[in-house]
């Protein structure tokens, strides 16, 4: 499974990468981008199976990245997990309306990350079965 981790803080990208590796994902299949612009370019150039993105980033924010993904036919089905310090109601609603697949508020634990990822893949599997 190929995963793109998007965050402007290199420490947070590395933490998310570590947690994903710990959960059994392959280290070599995890790639990183430091803002939404770079992320969307990478997504257009190569296939990914999951995006884990921060909200607050320069140039293109996480919510704009999510909207850009949903607006692009070749990317719109891509699962997006938002990992952010933003926990106000309006932002969570905005993310839900933009079609986010999961929302994690920082700081979080590996258990929370696992739960949200399991839920995303369960739902996708269910959608795939009914489609």
């Amino acid at each position, binding site marked *: 499974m190929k995963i793109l981790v998007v*965050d402007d*803080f290199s*420490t947070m990208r590395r*933490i998310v990468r*570590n947690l994903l590796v710990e959960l059994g994902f392959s280290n070599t299949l995890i790639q990183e981008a430091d803002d939404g612009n770079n992320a969307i370019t990478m997504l257009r150039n190569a296939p990914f199976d999951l995006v884990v993105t921060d909200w*607050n980033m320069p140039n293109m924010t996480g919510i704009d990245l999510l909207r850009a993904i949903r607006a692009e036919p070749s990317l719109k089905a891509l699962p997006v997990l938002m990992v952010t*310090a933003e926990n106000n109601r309006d932002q969570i609603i905005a993310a839900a309306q933009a079609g986010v697949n999961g929302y994690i508020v920082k700081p*979080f634990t*590996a258990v929370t990350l696992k739960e949200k990822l399991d839920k995303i893949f369960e739902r996708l599997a269910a959608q795939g079965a009914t489609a």
Partner: protein
Amino acid sequence: MNAVTNPLFGETLPHELQQLLSTPDGPAFEQALDGLVREREQHLFRALGVLARDLHDAVRRLGNDLAQEGVPDSVADARQHLHDVLDMSAKAAHRSLDFAERMRPRAEALQADADQVLANGGDDEAAATLARQARDFAGHCRDGLSDMVLAQSWQDLSGQRIKKVSSFIGSVESSLLELVRLTGALAGGEAPVAAAKVSSQDEADRLLSEFGF
């Protein structure tokens, strides 16, 4: 009409205005009224300008006092210091992550080796005890390293706050300079085109003195 007893203005009417109201010359009346209003505006703008100058001086004085203790002496320096903190904290967090990434494979290897020893069985009870202890220890290490990795998210959370404070300081600085520019322009000075882009202490001082503050 008697200006002094006009019920609309009562006793509070300034003396200059009382005189004006009794003059028969229309244009002279308007000119004098404009003059009065302008004079009052000038007072206000001058007061605002002095306020801005005082505020600026206070900030600078505070900076100079603090500079003797090794802290920043300008807004730009203050922002730079915050960015330095951001860099240092990121480096510290990466060092902890380096350590965790270096130690995790070792803990995993120790755990696997201990499992192997226990799976092979044998009669050596001391070796089996040691293998069990090693396996438990390696497990605790892995859990501890995971916790340590997660704990580094403080750098991201505190860093975001530092970034917000830094941009707040920047906006206070530009608001202050904008106030100087506006009061200077209203008080009769020419507003420099790029005033809002002023960033250094020297530029700020020059701008303030251009307006006579």
